[in-house]
């Protein structure tokens, strides 16, 4: 298990170093002290980048801002955003408010339990919930596109709880 977390952490850092999309492969992530300050850091960085041309790295790609974390996870048959994920969404909301040209797709996903149609609707509700919170955080409606893949695009394909947890997710997918 420790090995797995270490590997995940390594993957995250590798991915975030080379790509703007950095899916977090750890399901139901524990609340860490860093997460709560991520929003503040992100906001500061975002503000700094907006007012200064010196910053070379888009805060979106800077692991220190927390904005490289772009997946939220859910309990079974639930679309309510977990408390631990709210600072993350708020940080993305503030980032988007400082970058009105940036657009992001909110992609709701579900595990395979239930019917495909029910899951499509549930994934849509997950994505719409994230959209609503992003707007509260300062993003504009026209920057956001909420869609659902239901159970159709599982990231993890085994039929067990570990995979199901991984697949109950909303991804923030920024347009290039």
């Amino acid at each position, binding site marked *: 298990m420790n090995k797995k977390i270490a590997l995940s952490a390594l993957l995250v850092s590798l991915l975030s170093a080379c790509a703007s999309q950095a899916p977090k492969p750890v399901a139901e992530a524990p609340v860490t002290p860093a997460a709560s300050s991520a929003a503040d850091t992100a906001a500061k960085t975002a503000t700094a980048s907006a007012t200064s041309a010196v910053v070379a790295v888009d805060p979106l790609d800077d692991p220190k801002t927390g904005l490289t974390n772009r997946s939220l996870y859910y309990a079974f048959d639930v679309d309510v955003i977990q408390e631990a994920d709210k600072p993350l969404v708020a940080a993305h909301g503030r980032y988007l408010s400082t970058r009105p040209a940036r657009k992001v797709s909110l992609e709701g996903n579900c595990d395979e339990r239930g019917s495909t*149609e*029910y899951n499509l*609707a549930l994934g849509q509700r997950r994505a719409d919930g994230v959209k609503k919170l992003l707007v509260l955080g300062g993003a504009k409606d026209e920057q956001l596109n909420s869609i659902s893949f239901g159970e159709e695009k599982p990231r993890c394909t085994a039929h067990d709880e570990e995979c199901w947890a991984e697949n109950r997710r909303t991804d923030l997918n920024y347009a290039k």
Partner: protein
Amino acid sequence: MRFLMMVLMWLGSLSAHAVLNIEISGAGERQIPIAIVPFEGEEKLGSPISNVVAADLARTGLFRLIDPVGKNPHRPSEVNYADWLGTEAIAIGAIVEQPNGRLEVQVRLLDSVKHVELNGRSINGRDTQTRSIAHRIADYIYETLTGVPGVFSTRIAYVNRHQGKFKLVVADSDGYGEQVIFSSDEPIMSPSWSPDGSHLAYVSFETGHAAVFVQSLVTGQRLKIADYPGSNSAPAWSPDGRLMAMVLSKDGSSQIYLAKPDGSELRRVTDSPRTVIDTEPCFSPDGQHLLFTSDRGGNAQIYRMAVDGGSAHRLTFEAGSSFSPRYSPDGLGFVYTYRNAGRFYIATQDLTTGQMQLLTEGGWEKRPSFAPNGKLVLYASDAQGRGILSTVSSDGRVKQRMFAQIGDIREPVWGPYLK
């Protein structure tokens, strides 16, 4: 090991029309012992029409196939009834090749208890369509002996997901004769037959999100009928083919709408708050009501409402959740998926008594639909983590699993009688 698996998969993909392995379990309460005698001219044709007929009948669980063991009468005058003790019916016949590439199969059905000819029929078709000729012969025998129309000539549709590719497939009711009618790198969901069997409506993600398409099975022409922001899904035709029920999320949550089958004249039917999902609409055979799935009571359950609107009545109350309702062809009940304690079952409910019946033992069993004669239910199940097609008789007694398809089979739906 992985290499070997890859090779096997590759070989598999070469034989997309490989013989299906069909496993049948259970039997009808009463089975009719019947002998299907190979038809005259069949061996010359190189097509075992009588084998297909026998397999069709066997799969219903209502017949016990008696081996003719070398006896091969083709005309009633050639039948010595003393040879056929233990049977109740014998099917005999002859194939006549016609000059224009067509075949005529003259079939006669004999009552081997009363020693009389029941009736006969002449069935025509192209020589390239021997399986469909055989299915029509099986339909004739089934209807003559049970009084219920057969469904062997009807077709089914399903989605095949394989290595990130999605295919919408139409096949014979026995799983053979697959035709891919649409392929995509993006998901395909929820195929739905038009009442005359000429079109399929379905959900495709090719535009980046779930949108509803209608495709002609005759011309292949496709029409995008709903592509609003959010999700567009769950198409269902009215029995007269004039309306399409769909689920759209454009107004805040997934709700049921009605439109013409080209997507025009859209109007909302359900009016739930933003926190509620209403989905999977299905028209009653008289076109007056809709069954649908809703989580308005806290989790997914099945409800019924008038197509004209008004209040919805909850129909399922068992512990766990219930979804994917489909009316029986007589409108007296419905089949659905019941989920409890991590297992999925195929269940029916009698709308008059409210009585629930589990048709399966439970496992990974989803998206049931009735055959148009109401005697069989097609559903998706799994074997070794891969989706397969399964059927169960509507009394739950006879089950059939169809293996050996390539890929993960999802979203099956039984088509209507072909006019």
